[in-house]
């Protein structure tokens, strides 16, 4: 394959049915059974395996509506276990880091990697990533490769649609391959194209990714948004987004960076985490979401001779919040648990998970235009906290969740983050 060496090459690594795949590791008897995972905010389906999809189950299906159907069809149902998914997500990142020069977490189950400068065939690097993540973490991933982030995402989409044929790794750098795929790709499957934009584009006679890529980027940018202009340029093969510069994901927000120089102190890590939280919380408020779980990670470089250390912790705030003070104090408390002196830290990471829309969680109490109601909510929170104890953070959140009894019943153990709940294996 002839490839222009000066152009950047991005890979997108995506875990197949991530939440469900995590649950299946510890319940191997479910590997042939359909599995769904529910949000704990409103009890709808947020993840499903291919078998569940084949049954006609959709993302967002409310649990109470499909409950009978799930039982009849032997579908295994789980509540979201964020401490488990957070730990496995962290491990996926570490496995990938051992193979590539630079990477960026895009969401809890997707990472961009930089592949330029690596000797051809780069598709073999994609296959190596797939093999190593499976070997180390027991999680199946797909890899898409392209000259822009948007094309890498499209390639990854193709690796999912044609998984049998592609083996889950697709190199989308040849122009004829790009055209072949984009002609078959509905425009709403393009990275960054939402439902509203799809409807707008439909009025312009654009329904496939290929048609969008043929549109004039500048005039479309003027008509709609700079984001759309960038998307069109990226579909045309012009890279407009560097690593670490992507739009926030819907279900999780990540803020992380390699340090310019190694950090040796707790204070240095505190400063870095506070800075990342500040940024992540800004993104959170911008998309008007609240965060129900966050995860922080610290690590030394994996390369070189120095002592190596990597650890991470998941924290559930007392209530879903976008308050930077609340999030920061959670993060710093978690840091105290995992910080070890004597290491040269190279990276810190903040991952906000379990994001919900304001109001979705407690109806209109969180509406920002009504601060007195927010105050009332805070008072309620304090009351609950006083009643249940300040350490009982999860409990404090529970009474606000309408389906908390069910939530607890369907929650899998914290197999990897609690000594009491370790995965039990059989000697018999």
């Amino acid at each position, binding site marked *: 394959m002839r490839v222009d060496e000066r152009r950047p090459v991005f890979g997108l690594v995506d875990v197949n049915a991530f939440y469900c795949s995590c649950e299946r590791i510890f319940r191997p008897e479910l590997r042939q059974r359909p599995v769904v995972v529910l949000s704990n905010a409103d009890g709808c389906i947020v993840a499903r395996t291919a078998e569940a999809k084949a049954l006609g189950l959709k993302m967002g299906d409310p649990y109470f509506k499909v409950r009978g159907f799930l039982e009849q069809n032997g579908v295994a149902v789980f509540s979201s276990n964020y401490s488990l998914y957070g730990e496995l997500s962290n491990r996926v990142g570490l496995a990938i880091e051992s193979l590539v020069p630079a990477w960026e977490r895009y969401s809890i189950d997707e990472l961009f990697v930089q592949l330029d400068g690596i000797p051809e065939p780069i598709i073999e690097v994609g296959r190596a990533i797939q093999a190593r993540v499976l070997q180390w973490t027991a999680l199946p991933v797909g890899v898409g490769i392209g000259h822009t982030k948007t094309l890498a995402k499209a390639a990854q989409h193709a690796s999912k649609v044609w998984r049998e044929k592609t083996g889950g790794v697709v190199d989308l750098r040849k122009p004829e391959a790009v055209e072949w795929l984009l002609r078959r790709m509905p425009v709403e499957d393009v990275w960054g194209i939402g439902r509203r934009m799809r409807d707008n584009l439909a009025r312009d006679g654009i329904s496939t990714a290929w048609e969008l890529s043929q549109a004039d980027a500048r005039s479309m940018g003027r008509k709609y948004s700079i984001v759309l202009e960038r998307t069109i340029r990226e579909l045309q093969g012009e890279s407009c987004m560097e690593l670490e510069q992507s739009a926030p994901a819907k279900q999780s927000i990540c803020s992380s960076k390699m340090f310019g120089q190694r950090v040796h102190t707790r204070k240095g890590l505190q400063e870095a985490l506070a800075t990342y939280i500040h940024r992540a919380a800004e993104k959170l408020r911008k998309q008007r979401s609240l965060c129900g779980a966050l995860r922080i990670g610290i690590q030394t470089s994996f390369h070189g001779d120095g002592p190596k250390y990597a650890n991470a912790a998941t924290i559930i705030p007392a209530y879903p919040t976008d308050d930077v003070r609340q999030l920061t104090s959670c993060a710093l408390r978690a840091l105290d648990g995992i910080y070890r002196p004597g290491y040269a830290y190279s990276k810190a990471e903040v991952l906000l998970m379990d994001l919900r829309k304001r109001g979705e969680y407690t109806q209109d109490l969180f509406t920002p235009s009504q601060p007195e109601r927010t105050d009332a909510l805070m008072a309620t929170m304090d009351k609950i906290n006083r009643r249940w104890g300040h350490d009982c953070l999860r409990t404090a959140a529970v009474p606000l969740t309408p389906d908390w009894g069910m939530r607890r019943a369907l929650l899998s153990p914290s197999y990897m983050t609690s000594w009491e709940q370790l995965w039990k*294996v059989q000697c018999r």
Partner: protein
Amino acid sequence: MLSVLAGTAAGGFPSPASDYYEPPVSLDELLNIRAPHVWIVRVQGESMRDVGIYDGGVLIVDRSITARTGQIVLAYVDNQPLVKRLAKAPDDRWLLESAHPDYKTITPEQYGSIEVFGVVTWDLTQHAS
């Protein structure tokens, strides 16, 4: 209340005078449990008693090691997570040995599918608390 730093973290952080600090020996390091391919699991049952793996004990399992004859592994056997010692049957398929006279070796005729999850590198037994 915490004040939040303005600006970016990329400029680096002050390097401390603790360059000569050596951390104490670490069980994390010895057992390598911070590696992303190492897993910690809890034992149920006595079938591996005679190699020192007891009910309620903790095992360290490494997925980056390719399993060989003689090693103790955690394996999905017919989709059940089992701990056994690997041996080879004459036809090159895996035999699953126990370390307890009451438990017989599982032969290839007795299982439908086997997939090694990882190799047991350490076991931890608590003797007092």
